[in-house]
């Protein structure tokens, strides 16, 4: 596919907890010669907290309508934003009455169904393709990597873009960076616990601990992932999890665009690798 420009939906954590995801996404796409035009004045997708689907559809009708005016398909690096944007897209495209109802709230919510929504993993592997990416690889990242997919990449079925039980898109990217994918079958598609972090931290930490420990037991040098909530749980909360359970993990957690960026020869500072909470120097040291 020769799409060379996308409407970029950064998501709320892009300026704060997941700034390294935003930074790496932008420099990687620049390096690949693909333009990202931010959705102008985008609003929050509703995350996991807005539970009423109809409110989610209306919130995202606005984002979709702006992208439609920009004449571009959407790419987002966040799995939850992707899920909310895409399920809204499906609901609005398939239901004229819903579109009319949303439009009647405000003219800015008038969406005609002309946009595709994609997650960054889908764009990298399926739009750009492994072949083109491989041709641009300048360095090898000789690390053992645990690919953590989490929830909304392979589920639920109508928005999924990878296998629910044995996803492989991130594996393909890790392989082309020169990394080794470690066996990581038990927790790679399990939830990180993120949605319960503020209301049932005990359960959230238990979930995240399993994900981290399986990666460690598999001999991984780092975890790669593609969602800021997973990043928050596994990276930013990792010291708290270690303390809560009296364990040592010390597992660097990289956004997949950071890992890919290293292989494309991009400077680690530009990829925000000094922003990850668990030190990533050991991974930068494996770039050859």
């Amino acid at each position, binding site marked *: 596919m020769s799409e060379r420009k996308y409407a970029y939906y950064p998501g709320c954590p892009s*300026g*704060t907890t997941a700034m390294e995801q935003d930074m790496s996404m932008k420099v990687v796409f620049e390096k690949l010669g693909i333009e990202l035009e931010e959705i102008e*004045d985008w609003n929050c997708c509703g995350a996991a*907290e807005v539970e009423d689907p109809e*409110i989610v559809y209306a*919130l995202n009708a606005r984002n979709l309508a702006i992208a439609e005016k920009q004449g571009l398909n959407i790419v987002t690096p966040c799995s939850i934003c992707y899920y909310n944007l895409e399920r809204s897209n499906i609901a609005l495209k398939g239901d004229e009455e819903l579109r009319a109802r949303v439009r009647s709230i405000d003219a800015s*919510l008038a969406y005609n169904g002309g946009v595709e929504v994609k997650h960054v993993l889908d764009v990298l592997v399926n739009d750009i393709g492994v072949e083109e990416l491989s041709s641009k690889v300048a360095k090898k990242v000789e690390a053992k990597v645990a690919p953590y997919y989490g929830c909304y990449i392979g589920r639920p079925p109508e928005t999924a873009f990878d296998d629910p039980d044995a996803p492989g898109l991130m594996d393909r990217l890790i392989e082309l960076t020169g990394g080794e994918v470690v066996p990581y079958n038990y927790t790679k598609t399990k939830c990180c616990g993120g*949605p319960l972090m503020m209301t049932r931290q005990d359960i959230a930490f238990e979930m995240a601990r399993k994900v981290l420990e399986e990666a460690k037991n598999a001999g991984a040098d780092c975890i790669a992932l593609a969602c800021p909530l997973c990043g928050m749980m596994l990276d930013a909360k990792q010291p708290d999890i270690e303390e809560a359970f009296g364990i040592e993990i010390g597992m660097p957690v990289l956004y997949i665009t950071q890992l890919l960026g290293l292989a494309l020869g991009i400077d680690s500072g530009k990829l925000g690798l000094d922003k*990850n909470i668990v030190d990533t120097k050991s991974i930068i040291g494996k770039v050859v």
Partner: protein
Amino acid sequence: MIKTWELEPNFKYEIMKEPGGEHLTSCFQCSTCTLGCPLTEIIPGYNPRKIIQMSLLGMRKEVLSNPDLWVCLICQTCTARCPQDVRIADLLGAIRRIAEREEEAGRLKIDSVRPRFDKAFMHQLEKYGRLYDFGLAKEYYTGREGSFFKGMMAMSKDYKEFGMRLFKKGKMGPKALFPEKVKDREVMKKIFEQMGAGKK
């Protein structure tokens, strides 16, 4: 034992009217949802299949006051594996919203802080159009602890180290300290006022 004379057989229709709850009666009780649920490894007895059967039977009071409603991670594993397309993750969300309305009407006491958190989150969206972490934490902790002072004490206990960690990495700049606002905030307000169950 089920008290048959206390059952509310219309409960299933109440759920099916709620967005997300439409597929409830497709369930044939195979238990695939429970077998795949990651929470069952952590909470013994956690059983979404049972919540569905109780809903079908009309055990309204027991379902709406079930604390297990509030720990679902919405990870969608159940939905992905369900052979009957019951859409369990969305279904539990529909039941949660009925419970929240019952609490707002003073007919139910929910033993979970999650509704409070979700509402505080939505208030940020209504006000700013984007998530404002500090505003969310302030509203959530203040409400949970009963006063601004106690709320700030609890927040600082939970988040002091975490906050410092983010600060040291430059992740607590102006974008974290002040709300990022969308330009058209009036439309956010209108969405929350006019959309959602019961507002057709």
